[in-house]
């Protein structure tokens, strides 16, 4: 999976910040941001994950005319496709699995007007025996986000996990 063009836009940052309950004006108010240390609107720390919006093949987004494994009036009986690349360009990347870890390294903070690319590189794969869920298969991916000048701005490392049984402890 790769994203060739991830335009960072102010309205998207606003919606993303709202969705995580963060009303910090640095994410929405140009005048406030101009008078702050950073000097302009920036994106919240986990915003790069929203690059999934710009991945044309992202498996966790329904697409017109294509089968979708979520329910309509009734369950469809379709199985989620496995992308085989945990971390993906967004989300855990494994429809049948869960997100186990996510790590970001910020080389600089991104702002509206940046146009990023995301290149996904496979990482390690390992297995573990889980007490609640049977065998656990972990799958790591590294995503490098570069700006319009080719500069590395964010390095993300995601780990997805697939389990033999649903993990239902805690409910």
């Amino acid at each position: 999976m790769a994203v060739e063009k991830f335009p960072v836009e102010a309205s998207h940052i606003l919606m993303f910040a709202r969705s995580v309950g963060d009303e910090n004006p640095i994410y929405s108010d140009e005048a406030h941001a101009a008078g702050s240390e950073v000097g302009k609107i920036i994106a919240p720390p986990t915003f790069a994950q929203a690059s999934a919006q710009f991945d044309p093949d992202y498996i966790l987004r329904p697409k017109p005319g294509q089968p979708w494994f979520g329910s309509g009036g009734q369950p469809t009986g379709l199985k989620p496709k496995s992308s085989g690349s945990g971390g993906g360009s967004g989300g855990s990347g494994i429809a049948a699995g869960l997100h186990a870890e996510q790590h970001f390294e910020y080389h600089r903070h991104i702002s509206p007007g940046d146009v990023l690319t995301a290149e996904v590189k496979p990482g390690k794969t390992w297995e573990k025996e889980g007490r609640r869920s049977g065998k656990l298969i972990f799958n790591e991916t590294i995503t490098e986000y570069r700006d319009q000048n080719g500069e590395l701005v964010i390095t993300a490392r995601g780990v997805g996990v697939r389990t033999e049984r649903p993990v239902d402890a805690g409910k």
Partner: protein
Amino acid sequence: MALKRSEIKVGDTYSERLVEDLKRTQIVQYAGASGDYNPLHSDEVFTTQVAGYPSVFAHGMLTMGMTGKLLTNYVGDGRLTKYGVRFTSQVWPGDTLDSTVTVEAVREENGEQLVDLSLQTVNQEGRVVLSGTATARIDA
């Protein structure tokens, strides 16, 4: 806004309540903003009848995003250099989450003053749902 080296010490903590009685609608809001439309987070029929979970549950990244708010409230805007987490337990609709960051180290690297933090987010039962670390630039 930013932290000053002279004002923090190892062992300092900062806590915030991230969310009270997490609403299903907020999970949908996060799906829409992030683009992660996995039905496990919004489709009760699929999640209970097909996937075998007791109900829809939050994206791990929603919990990481909410915890990020506490982090940036503590270290200031644009100051983070690293932020990483493990998702240790699921977050369900109705959960109330509290998060704490702890100062683990204050150090200098390449002429920059940095603080290393550990962080933990727990639900109303005290179960850890997210644990992680972060590093931020601070003022001398």
